[in-house]
């Protein structure tokens, strides 16, 4: 198994380091895209998902990508997250050009630098909530130590799911599932946290809770958060809003 020690956790929600991190907020972007282009299909059925998109995501901010269905916002996120390959253009995250990585390197890069929260099916059904949170750590191939457990417990506490840790996903509410997913995404302190319609399946109260936690993550932890949504209410929680239309940022 390919394993490296994960980067040391960068402290808790009220860490003093958070201030240091905020210092270089505008120095280097957390992620940047240059001339990203992607099309699906060919000939008559050819669809442009991205037309030469340039984007810089500043560190420590909560950015929302908005746009109608088919505007290319999901494709943009997939390319930024290293889940999909653009036809041309470059994505750089934490100084690494994603195009230069092969599948295994990209997987390990994702594990160490990017966290995900999806609309649904975020958690493995056969694992408990706490096992799901610790999953990224386990994938590094290291023995789960006290430090990792402490961090997981701390994140669960902060996200309000500490009393649900022994339960399987089927026994959790939708909001609880999403908050467990956020805890998992934060475990290895990624450079970027991507959330793909994280509130799409939730009622408004649960959605507000999840969005509140994402916002806290950015502001108190210095975590860069990118959220794709078509819900204007959700977008209001973000620091910046990027609007996409016809495969372009407008």
């Amino acid at each position, binding site marked *: 198994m390919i394993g490296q020690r994960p980067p040391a956790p960068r402290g808790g929600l009220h860490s003093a380091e958070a201030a240091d991190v905020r210092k270089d907020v505008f120095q280097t972007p957390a992620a940047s895209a240059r001339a990203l282009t992607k099309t699906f299909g060919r000939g008559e059925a050819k669809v442009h998902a991205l037309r030469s998109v340039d984007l810089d995501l500043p560190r420590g901010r909560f950015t929302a990508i908005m746009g109608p269905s088919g505007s290319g916002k999901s494709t943009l996120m997939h390319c930024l997250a290293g889940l999909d390959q653009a036809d041309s253009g470059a994505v750089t995250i934490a100084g690494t050009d994603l195009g230069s990585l092969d599948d295994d390197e990209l997987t390990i890069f994702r594990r160490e630098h990017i966290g995900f929260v*999806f609309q*649904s099916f975020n958690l*493995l059904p*056969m694992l408990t909530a706490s*096992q799901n949170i610790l999953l990224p750590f*386990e994938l590094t191939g290291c023995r789960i130590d006290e430090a990792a457990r402490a961090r997981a417990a701390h994140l669960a506490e902060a996200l309000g799911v500490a009393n649900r840790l022994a339960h399987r996903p089927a026994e959790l509410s939708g909001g609880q599932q999403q908050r467990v997913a956020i805890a998992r995404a934060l475990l290895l302190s990624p450079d970027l946290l991507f959330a793909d319609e994280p509130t799409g399946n939730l009622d408004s109260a649960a959605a507000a809770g999840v969005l509140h936690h994402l916002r806290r993550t950015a502001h108190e932890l210095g975590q860069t958060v990118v959220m794709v949504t078509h819900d204007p209410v959700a977008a209001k929680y973000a620091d910046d809003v990027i609007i996409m239309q016809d495969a372009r940022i407008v």
Partner: protein
Amino acid sequence: MRTIFLASLRTFGRRYIAAQIAVSASVALIVVIGVLIAGARAGIMAADGAPYRKADYVIRAPKDDPQRRPSCCPGTLNTAAAIDLIARLGENASGLGRVALPLRRQDGAPLRSGNLRDETTVGPIANAKELRWQALVTGRLPAGIGEVVLHVWDANAMNIAIGDRILVGEGPTVAPLEVVGFVESPTTWTQASMYVTWRQYLQWRDHPTFHIGSVAVRGKIGRLPQGMTAYAPEAYVTESLARLNNGTDALALLLLLFVCVALFISIMVVANTFSILFAQRCRDFALLRCVGATKRQVTSSVWREAAVIALVASAAGTLIGVALGYGLIPLVNALAPRTPMGFPRFPAFWLLGASALGLVVTMIASLVPTRRAVQMSPLAAMRPDVPVDIHTAPGRFQLALAVALLVTGLVSLAFAMIEDSKVLMVAGGASVIVTILLIGPLFIPPMVTACGTLLGRYGRLAAANAARNPRRTATTTTALLIGVTMTTAVLTGLATWRTAIDAHRDTRLPIDVALTSLNKPISTTLLTQVRQTAGVEHAIAVNGAVARMTGLDAPIPVLAARNAEQVARDGGRFTKVAPGTIALDLDSFASRGGTLRIRPGSRVTVRVGNRQADLRVVLLSGWGKAGVIAPETLKLLTDSPEPHVIWARGSRGANWLQLVDDLDELADATGGTIEDRLQARAAGNRQLDVLEWSALGLLGISVAIALVGIANTLGLSVLERARENALLRALGLTRKQLRQILAAEALLLSVVATLLGMSIGIVFAWVGFETFVVRALRAATMEVPWISLSVVMLVVALAGLLSSIIPGRQAAAVPPAAGLLLD
């Protein structure tokens, strides 16, 4: 990944049960065969090898011994040298041999039992206790000259009790002996009716049938005299086993083939289970990949899962196999006393081999599904609403491979028929089956759909469900198809072989029982009595005369049969001899008194009273000790032909042994003798029966595995379709109707598999027929056993229906609301 691996096992372990059953059954099959082979080995040591069990060496004549021996006992030791050797080794040597001697009671009354009249066989008993291989039943063993123990069966048959006195031998070597005990001894070439001490045995050393076949020795031999070789007792057993196997070469091939079929079907069932389960879990895999699991991590986790499944299944299979194998040994002993089996030690090689094979089979079966699961793009997890569809249609590469395999397979089969090559036949058959497996998704689902429309409403729905995942349906069907193909091929092949053998036997053994009365003509009373004996279909008296023939010491009847077709199994063809010739039964004359000196085509003089005829000899077989001549020839020899022989035909299904006994009694009462071919016929039938039933039993296991596969596919599909089934139920489908749809699906799969399997099986049988049977029996024609095949079809269809019960219950148990909410 340990947490994931353990959690997966805990969550999905139950869904692997069908795959485990398949693997366990295959492993158990191999273990059973291993135990039975080891049992046969132990049986040989317990029976044939009994005299050598405690010996360190067996001394025999070398196989290429240039010295010629008497025809009765080839390969025996030089008597004088063997006696010297045993004298030198004393207690440590046990001579093994027999002598045939006259036997009377001391008061002169004759002793007779069965075919042995006033004659007995005597063998020696070893001096050392450890080398004795006879088991004492009552009384004691002989301690010196003048004492004898009898085999308990012979004692019963001849009505001898302990304490009786008998006279064995004649002339100067006659010995008065007292019966001191009864023994039992295994059926070996050394088995005799009575046993005496070595010293007593040596008294008959100058008798022509006295011989020492081998010597069992404990400890050191010292210098071995010329013309003798020492073997280890194990080597003797191995050699006997090889001799046994030579006779059953076809059986060994068959066993191997069936094990391969069972393994192949298991691979398919296991692979299908993995495919279905992985399809259901593909989102888990994709999510894992998203959050940073490499392909290698996912693969190794899945492989560990497969390995655990395989280990559990192999262990269970080994246990079941050992229990079954050891349980079968007493059964085989009860059913086939002629091939005694012993209880072997654990055949470690077979046990380990079978377990390893189970592991390998499961791992191979998990290869393709795992590869497919891991190839999934992580993006699939991001689109929760799009049903994940795994690529299932055969690709261009697979199509090309299938066409190539089909062509080579058919060409191999064609060449197999021309060249009579077994290897080409098996290779060709295997290629054709793999072709079906590859392109099954193209033609099996349409067949299922076509059959489904015949079943009406439910059929159409069931067919639509079955055709939805072509690869899965094809694999499930093909597993059963292979089992049915092999069953059909074996049934058809054996039916053809049986018909051919019967026809062949009917010409070789045309008359079932011949009752001969040389001294006086057959009376009409006797003929009536014979006709009224239970089990006699018909009997005729045959006219002729008692004649003397050059080259034969005893008189024989010469017969001219006019109506032999009433009893002869060859339609009386053997009695149609040309004038001027005489047909003789080769076997009858050869079986007693060595070989017949008369050659076919030679001329003999046949004399009846003072008239004689010079006739040309034709050698045929199957009606006993009588010459068959043309009516014209008989007229030359006598003016008043009289019946001297009755020919009888046994009815089908009668107790032939009893029939022969009854007729023997009738013959004895009138001073006649009987010869029968019924026992030979019964033995031949029994052999074919054993072959047929063991083949069917072994294939039954494969078919059962395939049916477990159907139940498995249905059961797992039901889980997948929970939401659709719930929708159907919400729209007004009753529980019963839902179960009926699933039953229809199972029925469709099994019927399509059976139809295809039978068609291919008959083609395979035809190839086998052209390859094997035609070469052995030129006149054979192919025989398709429609009745047996219909039974197979019915059984498989019923079993298919049966396999839908559990999945049907599971599906029906889900309330519509709960089903609709399922993700």
